[in-house]
């Protein structure tokens, strides 16, 4: 080890133990919108970890963007120094977790890095599906849980009812609940004291071989991948040669440190601590969430449990609207991928849309976030194809295939059977919606429906249904049917046999490959009708009649016609009319960039996207 890296003061074992005793690692888990971000902001502010100015400039800004997107994907882990009422200073590591079902695995890795969790519940909304799902996750990791009832400032807050729910639905002690208004800063100190006094300090042996759990990583344009870790055993310092236990890749540690909004380099980080490692790793895809880091020369015996390689479950192709937009899209995808290891993609091409990418996502929300980031951060206009799940095909000749792209669907004559992924879904609703939700579930091929009452008028419905039905507007439907009161969570179960068909859309007899979908045969007619109707609404009338058809093989199952435009001519065009007309042409020319030609038919981008939308009736 070089001179540069020698610690200025020798770290004694006692000192480390002292530190460990004063560390708390915790997460805030909550249903979306219950106030997790707001409470996190408050905790950061209360502990003065950054100056008010930096807080305003940086935190709120970055959070705004995420708030707008409605979810946090990249966690903002932060080490909060807190002087408790008992006079001691504690280091409270707040480990942020992504707030959506698509990211359950990431959440589980973050929770695995904690000893405790704050379970945040909106005082007017009460316990929701993600509250339950997150609680189960936290319990699996044997975390100490402190219920926090937030938004007590709301006139509709009903603390007693929430306490009942905490007792009945969650089986937790309602008397231990902390009352807060994150918005008004009420109860923030109680939360900090609760974390100090009720959550246990981390365990671990700083002298043991390094065992560090990767729970996240992000890309830094100057430093490459910054790995977020929880150290369970041992310690790590710059210069250490490390290895990833899942794939034995070896790197040399360049820097370690902790997060205090900005990265704060440390001479070393050790058992019990949460921090970061920089080791010259180019992209976040070279690290895997849940993997264990150890020292090459002094490895730990076993990796941390629970590691799994995450597989995408939803697939869709992304195309640029602009005919010359492929290069730009490729660059943007590359950049996104630097920071999003769960996004996978490969080049794809379509007769109608040209070159694009076939992408795999962790879920529908992940897809939406990627789409939105590409559009907003990279200013791209995109066309997405209908999301698909991954099907397993067993062929007549005994071989098997995996298909997630309608374009690659083989001749059905050669298929013996098809399997599709099933999920176990949990829906929490006020019981007056039971009938409506039951109907929705049955419509969506739900089976094995069971339910239980949580409190006297709230219930949890559990059932199994095909994932394919969920990625098709299930969540929106549920929200509208239950007037926003229904909450939903799911986990993937297994593969089951299904009756699949490839639905093609023909426009003036030309098959539009980008509009093909894999659908359950029973739902094919309905989907075909829906697609035809949407296209009819979105494709402008043209100089000729346009026939829109839905077909399975040679079988037409739905049909709509757009009648021909009968005239389109400006009657008068003299001096003053010319500029106006030219401006219109310029606008049309621009709009044309967003049009795709199928044969002679001009199809606007909105038409491609409309097929994916459902009527919210």
């Amino acid at each position, binding site marked *: 080890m070089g001179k540069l890296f020698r610690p200025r003061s020798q770290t004694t074992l006692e000192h480390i133990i002292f530190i460990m005793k004063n560390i708390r690692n915790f997460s805030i888990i909550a249903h979306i919108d219950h106030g997790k971000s707001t409470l996190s902001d408050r905790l950061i502010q209360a502990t003065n970890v950054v100056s008010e100015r930096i807080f305003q400039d940086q935190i709120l800004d970055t959070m705004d963007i995420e708030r707008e997107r409605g979810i946090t994907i990249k966690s903002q882990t932060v080490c909060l120094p807190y002087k408790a009422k008992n006079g001691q200073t504690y280091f409270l590591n707040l480990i942020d977790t992504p707030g959506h079902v698509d990211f359950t695995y990431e959440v589980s890795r973050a929770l695995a890095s904690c000893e405790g969790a704050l379970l945040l519940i909106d005082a007017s909304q009460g316990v929701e599906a993600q509250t339950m799902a997150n609680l189960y996750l936290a319990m699996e990791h044997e975390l100490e849980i402190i219920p926090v009832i937030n938004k007590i400032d709301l006139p509709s807050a009903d603390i007693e009812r929430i306490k009942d729910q905490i007792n009945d639905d969650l089986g937790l002690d309602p008397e231990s609940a902390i009352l807060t208004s994150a918005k008004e800063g009420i109860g923030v100190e109680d939360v900090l004291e609760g974390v100090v006094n009720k959550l246990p300090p981390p365990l671990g042996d700083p002298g043991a071989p390094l065992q560090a759990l990767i729970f996240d990583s992000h890309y830094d344009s100057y430093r490459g991948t910054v790995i977020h870790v929880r150290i369970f055993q041992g310690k790590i310092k710059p210069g250490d040669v490390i290895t990833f236990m899942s794939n034995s890749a070896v790197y040399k540690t360049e820097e370690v440190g902790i997060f205090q909004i900005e990265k704060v380099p440390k001479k070393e980080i050790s058992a019990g601590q949460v921090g970061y490692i920089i080791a010259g790793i180019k992209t976040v895809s070279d690290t895997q969430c849940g993997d264990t880091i150890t020292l090459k020369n002094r490895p730990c015996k076993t990796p941390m449990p629970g590691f799994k390689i995450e597989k995408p479950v939803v697939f869709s192709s992304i195309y640029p609207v602009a*005919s010359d937009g492929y290069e730009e899209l490729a660059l943007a995808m590359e950049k996104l991928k630097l920071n999003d290891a769960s996004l996978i993609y490969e080049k794809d091409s379509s007769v109608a849309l040209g070159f694009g990418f076939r992408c795999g996502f962790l879920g529908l929300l992940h897809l939406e976030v990627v789409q939105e980031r590409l559009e907003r951060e990279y200013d791209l206009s995109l066309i997405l194809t209908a999301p698909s799940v991954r099907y397993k095909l067993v062929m007549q000749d005994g071989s098997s295939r995996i298909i997630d792209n309608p374009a690659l669907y083989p001749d059905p004559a050669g298929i013996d059977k098809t399997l599709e992924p099933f999920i176990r879904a949990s829906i929490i609703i006020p019981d007056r919606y039971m009938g409506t939700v039951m109907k929705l579930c049955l419509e969506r091929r739900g089976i094995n429906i069971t339910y239980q009452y949580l409190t006297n008028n709230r219930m949890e419905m559990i059932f199994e249904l095909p994932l394919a039905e969920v990625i098709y507007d299930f969540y929106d439907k549920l929200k509208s049917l239950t007037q926003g009161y229904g909450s939903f969570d799911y986990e993937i179960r297994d593969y089951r046999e299904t009756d699949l068909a490839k639905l093609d859309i023909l426009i003036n007899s030309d098959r539009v490959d980008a509009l093909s979908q894999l659908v359950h045969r029973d739902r094919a007619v309905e989907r075909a009708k829906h697609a035809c109707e949407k296209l009819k609404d979105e494709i402008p009338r*043209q*100089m000729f009649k346009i026939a829109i058809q839905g077909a399975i093989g040679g079988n037409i199952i739905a049909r709509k016609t757009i009648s021909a*435009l*009968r*005239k*389109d*001519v*400006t*009657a*008068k*065009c*003299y*001096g*003053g009319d*010319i*500029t106006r*007309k*030219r401006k219109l*042409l*310029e606008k*049309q*020319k621009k709009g*044309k960039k967003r049009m795709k030609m199928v044969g*002679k038919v001009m199809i606007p981008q909105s038409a491609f996207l409309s097929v994916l939308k459902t009527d919210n009736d």
Partner: protein
Amino acid sequence: MVSSHPLLFDTLYFGGGTPSVLKPENIGRIIKTANGLFNISTDTEITIEVNPGTVTPEKLTEYKNIGINRISIGVQSFNDKILNFLGRIHSTNDAALTIRRARKAGFDNIGIDLIYGIPGQTKKTWLSDLRKVVEFEPEHLSCYMLTYEKGTPLNRERQQGKFKPVAGSLLAEFFETTMEYLTAHGYVQYEISNFAKNASKISRHNFKYWIFSPYLGFGPSAHSFIEPRRYWNCRSVKKYIENIKEGRLPIEKKEILSKKQRMMEMVYLGLRKTDGIDIDAINKNLGINFHQMFAEKIKQLEEDGYILRIQSGTHCALSRKGMLFLDSIAPMLMIENWG
């Protein structure tokens, strides 16, 4: 801008609004003044727009005396119900009278404006309008399809559902009927909405708009064009007068057309004319190769019967069927190549 151009003018047009409110002697003064300031040719076409019922035989004679040699009459329709719908104050009798008076006053170049596609109008009533107008043997006819301009009371009423606009298919029929009827009666269509008894009677003035000729406009809102610049005057009469008094040009805005914009306008305006786009001229003016740029598109449009190559391929024009779709076809000739 005005005096620095050694342009030779060969048309003078009093129109837009109701120029007949001016006393003929004042119009005469304007003509004289213009002659003193600009280089105006001796056989200049001098047009005045008049509304039926607003001109006496005396006035018409005076027009003639001060040098006006063309009259454009806003008849609009020979059906009183329709005139009423359009909010016109004149009657069909007024219209007939005005046309006869103009003839009597010695005008041998009379233009008449008609409108079709009015709610309630049938093919029969429109044909009867055409029959009546042809009986007067005007040298020039403009037949405009009714359009609903944003912000007009008519458009507002349409949006409020106060009447049912004529269906597109019927409008298309009206358009075709017009072309057929007038051609059969000896008129030559030279632009989408314009017909003349013979080539010498086309509106020399209006034609200039479509061939990118320079023109100067006077009065509020008037447009001027000297390639590649276009100017327009302020709308407010008050402001216009103030500006003039203070010795300033009453220009509200000007635009300098880029090459792309010129091309756009040339293609659009060129296609309005039955003799179409003069390919040599557009190539020379813009330094492009029109054929190369649009070969594929034009071939397709030709095959579909929307576009014709005429005058042994030197011009590219819309067919009768194509004219109905000018606003759909023009954008097709404005893609990729134009960046």
